């Protein structure tokens, strides 16, 4: 079987580089098999593993209703249909690029300017990350990435590019902050294994930590990369999810303040999937200060351009500065309030989380509930959370975290009531765990679950790691 597989498919298509065979997805499968619903399925699995921003759609929907001209399908906008439908220039609609540049400036409090000519489209941030990697590194070369990091980096940066990721270890001893020592250690390790390092990828605000990098950290990263003459990529996809002090500082600002830094080494990845909550529209943005990279990335963008229908809608929306101002303020406030509710609820049951001011999730500390300070124990605890508490959260191991016991918990993809239910389930679990009752119960459950999960693995239907198959659109339309 393996032999004929190798014959039919390429190595890339046959290997695990897509990352979807990770146990990480078992939680998703459990959710898909039994999704929570307040009335129809109150004992189902609550999805807290999906970093989506669903808190401010009402604002967007109102804007869409009031601006029919933004759609090329309405009576008001249809005169534009033909021009929009035939436009396939990979520079993108000028009004789209301008609006995106302006929006990015606004998110950064107008402290920096973005040149629309440097804005390159891509198939989501997923596409932007891969494209940038293709532009900056050759197969066998490496990028440094601080841990814990977004799991799909493995797929996006390495799968088809042949580039490797070298982790920069961060741990809780200093709140998971990235240190110069850690960077140097990672760089040295790569050199020792004869691997050429081409760049450093930062995620600011951080997924999964929910923290922001301050000016000092960004300057340190900038000087480190300049010294080594390697690239600095900043994924700022969560930039508008910052809801509290310390506020967001973009690499763009630090670069503007560093006349000695080499701009040819600096690149920003962005998307509208998190800040606006539009993952379905596939709006990825690559912004580079390096002309050759802009040029090359633009040619590569042919492989993942943004639909002009979407460019048109968003160009209108983002150009409406009254709307964007209101949206950014409201969204941040709602995210802040929701996170506070989650963290306070956790604190009340003695569960801590890393202090953070951004993101759609918090980094929950369950080290005290581990049977041992090992990743096996973390996996065991995770199974209990999924099977007993019926909540899908993401274990730290899936983020390559160096210490066991941390879990990412998302809070912006549900309503308040669901979160209250989730909190009460966690509370029960914590109590049970502490009293040791859970240990016996989960032994019985796990053997049942292992059988059913392994059965599911044999199924040919692969679940998407993105949106679950139980999206209302799929349910009603299949």
């Amino acid at each position: 079987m393996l032999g004929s597989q190798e014959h039919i498919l390429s190595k890339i298509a046959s290997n695990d580089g897509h990352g979807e065979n990770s146990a990480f997805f078992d939680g998703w499968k459990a959710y898909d098999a039994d999704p929570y619903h307040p009335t129809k399925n109150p004992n189902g699995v609550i999805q807290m593993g999906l970093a989506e921003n669903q808190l401010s759609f009402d604002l967007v929907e109102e804007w869409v209703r009031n601006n029919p001209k933004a759609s090329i399908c309405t009576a008001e906008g249809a005169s534009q249909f033909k021009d929009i439908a035939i436009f396939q220039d990979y520079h993108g609609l000028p009004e789209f690029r301008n609006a995106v540049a302006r929006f990015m400036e606004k998110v950064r409090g107008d402290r920096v300017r973005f040149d629309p000519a440097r804005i390159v489209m891509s198939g989501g941030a997923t596409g932007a990350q891969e494209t940038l990697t293709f532009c900056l590194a050759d197969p066998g070369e490496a990028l440094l990435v601080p841990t814990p990091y977004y799991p799909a980096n493995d797929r996006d940066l390495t799968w088809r590019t042949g580039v490797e990721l070298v982790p920069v270890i961060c741990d809780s001893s200093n709140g998971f902050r990235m240190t110069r020592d850690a960077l140097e250690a990672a760089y040295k390790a790569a050199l020792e294994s004869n691997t050429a390092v081409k760049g450093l990828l930062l995620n600011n605000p951080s997924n999964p930590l929910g923290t922001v990098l301050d000016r000092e950290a960004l300057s340190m990263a900038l000087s480190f990369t300049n010294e080594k003459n390697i690239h600095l990529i900043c994924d700022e996809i969560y930039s508008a999810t910052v809801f509290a002090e310390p506020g967001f500082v973009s690499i763009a600002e630090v670069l503007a303040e560093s006349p000695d830094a080499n701009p040819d080494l600096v690149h920003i990845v962005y998307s509208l999937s998190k800040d606006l909550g539009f993952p379905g529209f596939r709006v990825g943005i690559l912004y580079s200060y390096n002309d050759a990279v802009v040029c090359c990335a633009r040619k590569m963008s042919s492989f993942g351009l943004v639909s002009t229908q979407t460019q048109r809608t968003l160009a209108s929306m983002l150009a409406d500065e009254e709307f964007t101002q209101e949206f950014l303020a409201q969204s941040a406030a709602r995210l802040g309030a929701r996170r506070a509710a989650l963290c306070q609820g956790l604190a009340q049951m003695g569960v801590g989380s890393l202090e953070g001011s951004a993101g759609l999730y918090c980094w929950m500390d369950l080290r005290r509930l581990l049977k041992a300070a090992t990743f096996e124990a973390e996996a065991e605890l995770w199974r209990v959370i999924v099977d007993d508490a019926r909540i899908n959260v993401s274990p730290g191991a899936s983020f390559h975290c160096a210490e066991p016991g941390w879990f990412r918990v998302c809070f912006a993809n549900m309503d308040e009531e669901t979160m209250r239910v989730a909190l009460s389930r966690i509370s029960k679990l914590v109590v049970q765990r502490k009293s040791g009752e859970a240990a016996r119960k989960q032994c019985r459950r796990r053997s049942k679950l292992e059988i059913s999960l392994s059965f599911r693995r044999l199924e040919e239907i692969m679940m998407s790691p993105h949106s679950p198959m139980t999206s209302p659109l799929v349910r009603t339309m299949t």
Partner: protein
Amino acid sequence: MTISKKAACNSHGQDSSYFLGWEEYEKNPFHESTNPNGIIQMGLAENQLSFDLLESWLAANPDAASFKRDGQSIFRELALFQDYHGLPIFKNALAQFMAEIRGNKVQFDPNNLVLTAGATSANETLIFCLADPGDAFLLPTPYYPGFDRDLKWRTGVKIVPIQCTSRNGFRITSSAVEEAYKLAQKRNLKVKGVLITNPSNPLGITLSRKELNLLLNFVDKKGIHLISDEIYSGTVFDSAEFVSIMELLPNRNNPQLMNRVHVVYSLSKDLGLPGFRVGSIFSNDRLVVAAATKMSSFGLISSQTQYLLSAILSDHVFAKKYVAENRMRLRNRHAVLVSGLRRVGISCLESNSGLFCWVDMRHLLSSDSLEAEMELWKKVVYDVGLNISPGSSCHCAEHGWFRVCFANMTEDTLDLAIRRIKSFVDSISPIKNCRNSRSKSISKWVSRLSFHDRECDR
């Protein structure tokens, strides 16, 4: 320094003449009123003939088009929908549309369809799935210039040409295929498959059953893949003449072969919607579907667009009507160009599909060489004011052929283009007939055409 080899190299192919002609057009684009002496774009294979049909559908179906279902807004669900399996209603509608175009002689299981951001992404993704860096695919020449980028650039896969010539109307022969395979072996390249475009770009012809069967026999014998890019399938003037590769498979009763034949499709040509980035891969092999689906993460179709198109294509009455009407308009427009060219002594390859003609200008070359073809091309771009695509940019084995598009302009503009060609041919016909003064006259033309200090006086 510090960027990758891919970024530094030229294999994106965009320095080829195909794209340079575009650049010249961009500098001086024709416009009926504001720039009537500008360059007419005939290098762009776009279908602009049937937008009115889509526009009137939209006007008649406001709810379907504006993110509403049963009067309720579904904006939010669409905005959140990023499942790489695609919107089921869209895949179903697309599968049915593809079947409709093939006269329902083939059915496509939506579960075997992978959605991608355009055929550009579909082709690249398939190559990533089927070949390793350094492997090769065989392609009949002439072929779409974009393949050099789409199939080779980031994948590291090579293209080895299957040479086709005008001796037999550019048809694919067994010997040409075998020769290409041998050439690949000589270069130490492992051949992973054959990729055909059917109907052909730039030829505008549908592949015959004979050609399709010989290709199937070949890939069967070698145990390799066959990719059929059927992006122009809806542009066949007479639907009865199109045979999709998928039609020929059931009779062969060969499941292994069936698993190695894959179809690429897109709505950019048939529906004229290149901006929407709608492409797809169809494969009977679930492993290929699974791998391609995962890769489609790098270029999914906007959910907003999937929804709009599912509404349009699910209207089967409309879809059927559109396909028939669109075909007829393309056929008529094609006839205008062919007859216009014939009147000035220029013939085209007899064709039955596509958005372009494959035009024979060999008799206008000063010599049978690439230089002469480029010389003629520059004349046509700068003196005649038409951007057409030289055969060399399509890797044609013979000099003097040009691809000329007809579906991306009004009929008036096409008439003007034909008049310009007539003036051009009339002005140089003395040269054609007079051997003695030939070199003198040619050099007079050539000296006016220095590429770098050309002043665009049109």
